Each structure stands twice: as C-alpha cells, then as structure tokens.
C-alpha cells in the first residue's frame, strides 16, 4: 500500500464508515454496532500498519523512523514557484516515507499535506486504540444508535486528521470539524445537564480556536523582520501554511523577530491551553466529562485532551521558540500551579467522575511544565530539556491510557450501582474482585507508581524541571503527595471496607475484560520498559522540537549577534548565513 493511500485511509476510513452507518436501517442496531466496531478495528489495524511502515525500510531504502520529518517533507517538495503564487505539480516524491503532499487550494498555497513522525504517530496509535475500545464500550448505548455511531465515526475521523495534518490550514479544518460531532454526542447522549455542558464545551473550544487561527494567519501574512536565508537556497517569503517549513524558518532565520514570536506564542498557548486544559481555562472539562456518556468521556480524556498537548509540542514551541523562552518561567509556573490546583480540586470532589476529570487537569499540568523547562543550547545542557519534552509526550500517552481506563471503570460502576457518589460506594473489592484489581492497577498507574506508565512521565518532567528551576521542581514534586492522597482516599472509599448495599453486583463481563486488558498491559509495559515508546519517539522529538527550539537563532548568542534590530534600519541586513 502506498503511503499516500495509507495516510489518507487513516482519516477517510472512519469518515466513510460514518456515512455508511447512515445507510443501515435503524431497525438493526446490532448491525450498526458491529459495523462500527469493525471500522474502528480496521482503523486500529491501519495505524499498526503505519507503525510498522514507520519502523521498517521503505522501497527507497530509508527507514522513516531514522530520518527526521523535515528531511522526509523536503523529499516531497512541490515544484513551481513558492510563495503566494500558484503551485502545481510534484516531483521527487519519495515512496513509503509517510508524507503525502498535494496542492489543495493553490491560490492560498494550501496543501493537502499529511505526515507522520514519532510525535504524531504515538498519538495516532493511541487514538486508534482508544477509539476501538470506546466503540466496544459504546455497545451499551440504546438511544438513537444510528446517529450515535455515525457521529462517533465522524469524530474519530477528524481526530485522526488533526494528528496527521502538517498543513496548518488543514489542521484547523480538522480541528473545527471535530467539535460538531462532540457537541452532539454530549448534547444528545449525555446526562441530565447535558445541554449546558455541550454548549460550554463547544463555545469554549471555539473561543480557543480563534487564537490558533489568528496565530496561523500571522505566520502566513507576516511581512518579515529581516530577510533570512532559508535552507541555503530559496528566500523565505512566508505565505505558507506548511508547518514544517514555517518552523524551520522560525528557528533558522531572522524572518520572524522576537516580538512577533512572543505574540504568536501567546496566541498558540492560549488556544491550546483551552484544549489541554490548563488552569484557568479548564472548567469546561469537569462539566463535559460528568455529562458525557462513558465512551465519550474515554475519547475526551484519552484523545481530545491530547490535541491540546500536541498543539503545544507541534506548534506553540517550534513556531515561536523565542516567545516560548521569554515566557517560559510563567508557563512553567502555570503548569506547576495547574498540577497542584487540579490535585487539590480532585481531593475535594465527591463525584467519582468529576474527581477523575480534575485529576486530568493535574496531569496535564505536567505536559505544560515539561514543555516549559526549556534552555538555550550552549548555556545549559539541552539533553535535560529532551527529558522534559519526552516526559510531556510520555505523559500524554500514559494519561491517554490510564484516564481512558479510569473513565471506563467509573462507567462500569455507574452502570451497576447507578451512582457516582463516592460516599455511597464502598466495599466493592469484595463484591467485584477483578474490577477491584484492574482499578487498583490503573489508578496506581495514574498516581505514578514506579513500574507503571505514569511514573516515567512524572519523573522525567520533574527531573528536567530541576535543571530549569529547582523551586518550581520541588513544588511539582510535592504534588505527588496530593496525588497519592486523593487516589488512595478514592480507592478506599470505593473499594475497601465492607458493603451490604452493593452485594451481588456482577463482576466485569467478558466485553469489559476485553476492554481492560490492553489498558492494563500497556500501563505495565510502558512503565517497565518505556523505551518501547521512547526509542522511536525520542528522535522525532529531538529533531522536531528540542534541537530547533534550543538552537533558535533568535535565542542563541551567535544568532542574536547576526540579527541586528530590523525595523530601525532602512535596509534589512543580511543574516550571517
């Protein structure tokens, strides 16, 4: 299968599934469910195919995992004049390098441009898995099955698109498309206060996406602070939505000056922090989670939140390293505050689902912190920052697994006991031993117990933070006490003790066990042997984020010397290169 087809299938298969579901008569809900499950299984299979392609040698003789996305993108150049003129045709397309590029709206230089590297592939794999598991968890949906699964597959398709897109305009399109199915899924199949939660989710995310759009447009239209050489050949003239090329221009030329990088950074940051979510933009999350049906909560926590983190990793930092550096202390402090704030808020909850939702806020703080602990190459050892970014990415994967599991487990007990009130639960371990064992493992994984996945992420971020600012690092480390506090207290209130009221509740069914197994296995595997993920994610992170960010010309001493202030002189000076 050519990689063009493969990458396109990754988003179009669920899209097609979404349309085909509409053709199935609604008298056969079973058929609809099984059909959707087959689609998501197929999708997960495709992500695995992409994964093996990523790790194995392509016909052109390269291993995609071994070459940076930038090089692979460069091998897929569109010929013809670049810039705001029409681009046509393509040559030199490398086969099997997991990058696809075609002109889409040539007038604005918008491309149909997809690509996978370690950063996006890890999230694509996660999405494939979570979508499949939540689809299985959706089998208990009874209301308007046809509409539900159609919207569900549309949501899946758009999430895949978000992670695949390398063209910022395309990214934005997928990003917006994603909101609508999510809105309806919460608003129709949600709990008693679903309309409020759904509209809050929709408006809040739209609010955030405006910032992202503005940032993208600024990068597109910016007239340039100075003329910089780009890649040694063509001169950068902006007017491009190509995220790889823009990031390269930002880090290697003086085209985007310090001020505009600050503006772009703040816009991206705000937009993606809403999605992440981080304090103070997090309040849509508890409402959305509490109201959403279980499978949608799983998707929301497992995949949707990751889009915020992905945006930070892929856009906010690489597209504005100087801005990121200038605000890094405040962002790191915000991350630490989010960690502590989320943990404290979680501790006070009595609604099981709300508690898990706030724990997400706390965990996503580690993503912010891990990204923010940046240093400048030459002033400090950037390898520590590599631990920070890897920790942030690892946290997204780990949280994707554990929080999916936690929301699933909350759903299991809500289905049986019809309550999520922690004070009304209790003694469940004796009643449902397998459920108890799985829950302990997943919750401990989320708590960051060594040997389980959450630990690796937390400890990497905290260790990297010590190289950045020991005070913030100690505060972040102190959060592990609070985390232990709310997790243990929750487990005690739900599973320990004795219960007469809940006696006789059935243990996990086969379907539920099938859902738990991959989550349990991954929680342990990633905790014991994190290299299984880091080995192929780390090179992409280094080449895609850490190196360009820590050596950005606007930051390093050599770069600063070469970039004299621009607008003050009549003639833009040439850069040193």
């Amino acid at each position, binding site marked *: 299968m050519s990689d063009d087809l493969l990458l396109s299938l990754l988003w179009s298969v669920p899209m097609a599934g979404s349309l085909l579901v509409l053709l199935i008569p609604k008298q056969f809900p079973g058929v609809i469910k099984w059909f959707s499950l087959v689609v998501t299984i197929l999708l997960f299979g495709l992500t695995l195919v992409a994964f093996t392609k990523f790790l194995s040698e392509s016909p052109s003789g390269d291993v995609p995992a071994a070459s940076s996305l930038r090089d692979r993108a460069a091998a897929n150049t569109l010929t013809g004049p670049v810039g705001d003129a029409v681009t046509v045709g393509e040559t030199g397309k490398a086969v099997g390098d997991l990058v696809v590029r075609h002109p889409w709206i040539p007038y604005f230089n918008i491309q149909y441009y997809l690509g996978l590297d370690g950063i996006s592939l890890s999230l694509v794999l996660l999405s494939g898995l979570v979508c499949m598991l939540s689809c299985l968890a959706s089998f208990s949906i009874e209301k308007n099955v046809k509409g539900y699964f159609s919207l569900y597959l549309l949501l899946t398709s758009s999430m895949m698109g978000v992670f695949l897109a390398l063209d910022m305009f395309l990214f934005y399109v997928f990003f917006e498309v994603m909101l609508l199915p999510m809105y309806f899924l919460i608003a129709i199949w949600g709990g008693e206060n679903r309309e409020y939660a759904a509209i809050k989710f929709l408006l809040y995310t739209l609010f955030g996406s405006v910032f992202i759009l503005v940032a993208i447009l600024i990068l597109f239209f910016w007239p340039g602070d100075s003329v910089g050489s780009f890649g040694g050949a063509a001169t950068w003239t902006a007017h491009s939505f190509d995220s790889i090329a823009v990031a390269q221009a930002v880090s290697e030329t003086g085209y985007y000056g310090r001020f505009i990088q600050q503006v772009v950074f703040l816009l991206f940051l705000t937009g993606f922090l809403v999605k992440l979510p981080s304090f103070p933009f997090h309040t849509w999350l508890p409402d959305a989670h509490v109201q959403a049906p279980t499978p949608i909560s799983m998707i929301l926590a497992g995949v949707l939140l990751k889009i915020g983190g992905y945006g930070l990793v892929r856009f906010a930092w690489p597209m504005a390293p100087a801005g990121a550096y200038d605000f890094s202390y405040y962002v790191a402090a915000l991350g630490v505050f989010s960690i502590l704030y989320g943990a*404290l808020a979680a501790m006070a909850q009595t609604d099981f689902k709300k508690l898990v939702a706030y724990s997400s806020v706390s965990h996503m703080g580690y993503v912010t912190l891990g990204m923010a602990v940046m240093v400048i190459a030459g002033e400090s050892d950037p390898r520590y920052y590599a631990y920070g970014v890897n920790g942030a990415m690892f946290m997204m994967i780990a949280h994707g697994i554990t929080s999916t599991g936690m929301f699933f487990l909350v759903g299991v007990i809500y289905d049986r006991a019809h309550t999520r009130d922690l004070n009304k639960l209790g003694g469940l371990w004796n009643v449902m031993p397998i459920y108890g064992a799985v829950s302990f493992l997943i919750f401990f994984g989320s708590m960051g117990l060594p040997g389980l996945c959450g630990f690796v992420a937390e400890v990497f971020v905290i260790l990297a933070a010590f190289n950045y600012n020991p005070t913030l690092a100690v505060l972040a480390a102190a959060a592990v006490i609070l985390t232990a506090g709310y997790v*243990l207290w929750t487990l005690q209130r739900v599973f320990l003790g004795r219960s007469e009221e809940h006696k006789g509740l059935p243990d996990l069914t086969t379907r539920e066990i099938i859902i738990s197994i991959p989550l349990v296995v991954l929680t342990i595997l990633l905790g014991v042997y994190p290299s299984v993920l880091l080995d192929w994610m780390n090179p992409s992170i280094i080449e895609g984020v*850490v190196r360009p960010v820590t050596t950005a010309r606007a930051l390093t001493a050599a770069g600063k010397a070469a970039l004299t202030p621009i607008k003050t002189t009549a003639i833009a000076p040439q850069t040193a290169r």
Partner: protein
Amino acid sequence: MSWQVGLYVAAVFLPLVAFTVQILGIKFLGRLNAYIATGAIAGSFLLSLVGFLAYFGSAEGVFDHHARGGGEAHASAEGEHGGEHASPTKPHKAEPLLWTASVDWVTLGQGLKDVRHPEGLAIPVGVAIDSLAAIMFLMVTFIATLIHIYSMGYMHDDPRYPRFFAYLSLFCFSMLGLVASSSVFMIFMFWELVGVCSYFLIGFWYEDKKNCDAANKAFITNRIGDVGMLMGLGLLWSAFGTFDIHELNSTLRDRAGKLNVVTASKDAQAYDVVRLLDPETDTPLVDDSGRPSQIPYWVLTIAGLGIFAGCAGKSAQFPLHVWLPDAMAGPTPVSALIHAATMVAAGVYLVGRFFPLFTEPALLYIAYTGGITLFVAATIAVVQSDYKKVLAYSTVSQLGFMMLGLGVGGWAAGLFHLITHAFFKALLFLGAGSVYHSVHTYEMPVLGGLFPKMKWTALTMLAATMAISGVPLFSGFYSKDAILASSIHFVFHEGNYQHILLFVLPAVGAAITAFYMFRMWFLVFAGESRSQQAGHGHDTHSHGHDDHGHDHGDPVAHAHESGPMMLWPLFALAVPAIAIGWPMFILPFFGEPILEMMLAYGAPIPLADLGSAHNWAMLASLIIATSGIGLAVLYYLPGYKRFEAAKVAHRFAGINSFLQHKWYFDELYWAVLVRPTLALARGVSRFDKSIVDGVVNTVAGLTVVLSKFEGFFDRFAVDGLVNLTAKIIYVLGDWGRGIQTGKVRNYLMVLACTVLLLFSVVFAWVGRGT
C-alpha cells in the same frame, strides 16, 4: 555480566516470577500459592548464600584489615573500578570488591549536547553487589524465607491466603531489587514498590476502616519523604548527570575520605563548591570544555538532606515516624518482615550505601534525627499496653540508633546494628505473633503467666529481648556497643563537646530500651494470668482466627504453644539473634565482631580508629543494660517487685498522658497538615466553581445580555435608521413634487435664474484667474 551478577539478578527476579504466576493463576492455584512463594524465596536464599560465600571467598583482606587498625588493604576489584592503584606516598583507600553490571533503561537527547558528546543522557538500571549488599541479601532472604514458612501456619485460616503470599512475593522482589540497585534512581523506584506492598499488607484486612487508614497513612507519610528524595535526585542529576551510587561515591571524596571543597566566587560573592575527583588520580574531574564537575557545597548538603528525607520516611525517623506504629494493623508476619526487619531498614541501608554524599552538616542532622527518634520512641514504648505497639516503638527507636551511629561516622557500627536488629526484631515479632495466635489479644494487662504454657515462644523471645537490651554475649550487645563507641569517639575524641547529646541520648535510650523490653516480657510471660481479676474486653480481630473455639473471657486459660510451622522459624531466628554479633574469639569478647569486619571491608570511606572509645562504650553498655533490666525487675517481675508502676504513672500523670498520646504527633499533624490540606482542597474546589467557572459563566451571561441588547438596538436603532433614511427620502420626494407644477413658464423662470447664476459664478471664477 559476570556469573555473580547473574546470580543476584536471578535471586531478584525469582520472587517476581513467582508473583506473576500467583496473581495470574490465583483462581486455579489457590493455596498452592504459598508453596510457590516460599519456594521462590528459598531459591533466592540459596542463590544469595552462594553469592555471599563467593563474595567473601574472593574478597581479600577482609579479616586482616579492619577499620580500627587503619592498615593497608589489598583488594581485587572487578567491574568499573577495577585494578589496584597503589600510591606509595600516601595511604589510600583500596577499592573493595564490587560486582556490577548495568544496561541503559532510557537514553534521551542524543546528539544535543555538542559534537564531541553525541551520546544521550542515559538512566541506566544495574546491579551492584558490595559487601553490604551481599550481607543484606543474605539477611533479607533468610528472614523472608522463615517468615513465609511461619505465615503458612499463621495465616492458615485466612480467606485471602493466596493473595497474601502473592503480596509477599512482590514485596520480596521489590526489597531485593532495592538492595541490589546500582543507582539511587532505581532505589527510588523499588522504594515506592516496597511502599505499595507495605500499603497492601498493612491494609490486608481492609474491611476495617482503621486498617485502611493506617495503610494510607503509611503510604502518604512515605511519599512526603519521597518528595525530598526526588529533590535530592533532581539536584544531583542536574549537577552530575548520573545516578550511579558507586560512581558518585568514588568521585565525591578523595582517598582520605574528604570532600574536595574549594572556594569559588560568582558576582563577587564567595561560596564553597565541591569538585568531583578522579578516583584514579585524586585530581579534579573536568569536562571537555575544561570546566570542573562541581556542585555548590550548600546544594550538595540540601541534596543529601533530600535523600535523607526519603530515608527518614522509609525508616520511620522523626518527624516522619508516625506511620510505623499504625502499620502494626497488618498481619504480624508482615510486621516482622516488612515493618521491623527489612523494609524499614532500607532507609538506613541507603544512608550507608550513599554515605560519601552527606556533607558534615547533613551528617550532623542525621545524627540528631536519630538521637531524637530513638529517645522519643523509647519513651512512648514505656507506656504502651499493647505488646505489638511496644515492639513497633522499639523498632522506631532502634532505627534511630542506627541513624545516629551513621551520623556520627560509625559507618560499620550503624549497619552492623541494622543486621543484628533485623534478626532479633523479626524474632520478637514472630514470637508476638505466636502469642497472639494463641491468646487473640495484644493487651498486656490481661496477659501474664504464659511462660509455662508457651515455653519455646517465651524462651526464644527472651533471647531476643536480651539481645535488644544489650546483654553481653547476645548480638545486640556488640552492635550497640559499636554505636556507643562511635558516638564517644565523635563527641569526646574529636572534641565535639557541644554535641554531648549525641552520647547522652543513645545512652539513656538504651537504658529505657532494656527497661521496656523486659517490662514487656515480664508482663506477658511471667507470674500469673491477670485476666480473671481484670476482666478486660479485648479487641477481636475479625480475620478468621476466631474459630479456635476459645473462651474469650480468659485468653490465657486456653493458651497453647503454637504448631511446628510457627515454632521452627523462631528457633532458626534465635541462633543468629544470639550469635550474629560474635567476634572471632568469643571469650574475652573484646575482639572485633566478624560481621562488623565484613561490613567495614566495603566501607566507602576510610573508617576512623576508635581506640579506647570501645572500652568506655563497653563499660557504658554494661551499666546501661544492668540499670534498665534492674529497674524492669524491680517494677514488673512478680516476686521481686519493689515498686508499683501504677503509682508512678499516677504521680506523673501529666508526663504519662503526654507519652500515652505519643507526644501528640498525630494530633499535631492532623491540625497542621491534614486538616488545612483538606480545607484548602475544599477551598480550591469552591473557588473553581464560584470564581473560575463563575467568570466563564458571567462572560457567557454578559454575552447573552449584550446580544439581547444588540437585538433591541438592531430593531430600534439600526433598523430605525434605515427606516429614517427611507422616510427622509420620502419627505424630500414629497417636497420635490411641489416644484413640478407642470406649467412651462415656471420651468422657464427657473431655467433663466439658474443660467444667470451659473454665468455669474463662472465669470467670477475665470475673472479671478486673469
């Protein structure tokens, strides 16, 4: 990887394999789990016995060199610090034998630092076996094997019998992993794993809320210490980029055991930095750009204190000691294995293992922590009526002794006490379990007179009691003597008279220890049963032990000796509890204990020559033991009783109640830490709902209001404006209509006037131009 390392790796993983089999097959295996677990740990024991013999068989100069002589040592070292490096000019510390191997667990950041360093920053996992680790391994596996066997008897009727053994296996894996770890990062990981095993085992009977609370308290208190440990890890890693204990140990200090402190200055402010030294040449290490590897002295101190905070949590040192007594909620074999002999000693073990890290202020802090802990715990133990609690506080107190020993520089002494204590404390707990199994109560006031009914239990416990009290010829005597000698050396010989407390506290503490331990033994075993006259109720633990058909009114009446499954471990432990501290020639028991020499062989820094301190310590020990035991006899031994304990308690009611309340630590923490945290959590939640979410909702609400107003404005203003324009045009049109009269002369008139006006304007304009 040499075969020795392979041996130890196998010993670590055997219990993990057993755990995996047990937990996955818990339904099918059932009670077979006990045999799997016991077999695995026994296998580990055999492997570590082989390792132990191989280590001390191939280590040279263990016995001809000893610390007190300060002589030259010969050693053959394998692994990374291989080779001899004889320096003829100055006495040097020869590297002791070390078996080590490691693989990179994670490597990140390849090619980022500079061209010459393309390699990434790695976190390796590895095994490092030195003399301390070899001894610890043997001790842990030996005690654990016995406790597995004992548990088969003790837990026999428990409904969760298979799960219990699975937990034990997981614990053994974590503990052995901790001992074998080559890096402090790995130790941290196993640290938390033993913590979680301890959590599950303390809360093993989780139907009782009390037990769950105790488990939570243990875990969370430990996590407080772990934050400190993380801090230490982070600071060290930022400074040196490595977690390897032996690498840091050998580079932090020169051969004389001193830190290489230099004064540096930055921004005109002078401060001390510690520079790493090349262990081969004793010259400062520099990186490629010529910068020395260094860390500010105060940062190193903080890092050391951070690591120590973790140790204090695990080893229940003041102020984090509060969890250990509550941890006695777990089954007694667990208390013996985890909360007395092995896991709680891990903190002491780490301090010993990472000893060169600690700067002088840090060591002083450690010494005082130990001193305060041992004293506080000993005083609390005196007033406990629950014999398991007495043992718990005595454990805290003994751990304090070890820390104090290490803090005053008695490296071998502190660790020596760790090993001897493990044996006699495990024995005490198992004895206590044997008693409980027979009488089903922990309350000493209703016991007494058990000696004739449980002779073997009583005798083995007596041996352990004598060991802990420091009776000559028993193991505890030698190790406590070594600690006292170290503190005498530190205070008097090195002239640190201002730290006299570091001698007074252990001396007084040891006397109190002898007192309360014998008090316990007398109250439980001596004289007649007190249960008839007292008529106390006693706590009935609901865990399946109640079906013995006892008459619960009088626990002693039906007491019986425990079965062989529980007795044999007691005998097996009694032997080392007595003999483990013996010197080579027992009789003029002045020689240096064999075990201490074995430990001292692997000391990471040269140990001081204690000289005459030993003789003074011996004298002090004898006085201490005699006075403590004598007082116990006078107060509690029926027949020899001269004083009434109750009267003393009454006279000093204030102190008594202060001690009964355990110095009010729990109340203090509740008021200062727990309650404010919960209040803060509630506050945050409320803040989140009312303020943060409130702002969001207000903005949304304002938008709605605004849009309503806008709708109104639209209807009346914007739309009105449109209508107004239309109206004006209409009016104008209407008015214009009046002009159009349809009469030609009117039109001509207007035409003429307009032409006239036009011409006059045009001529006026043109004329101005000329």
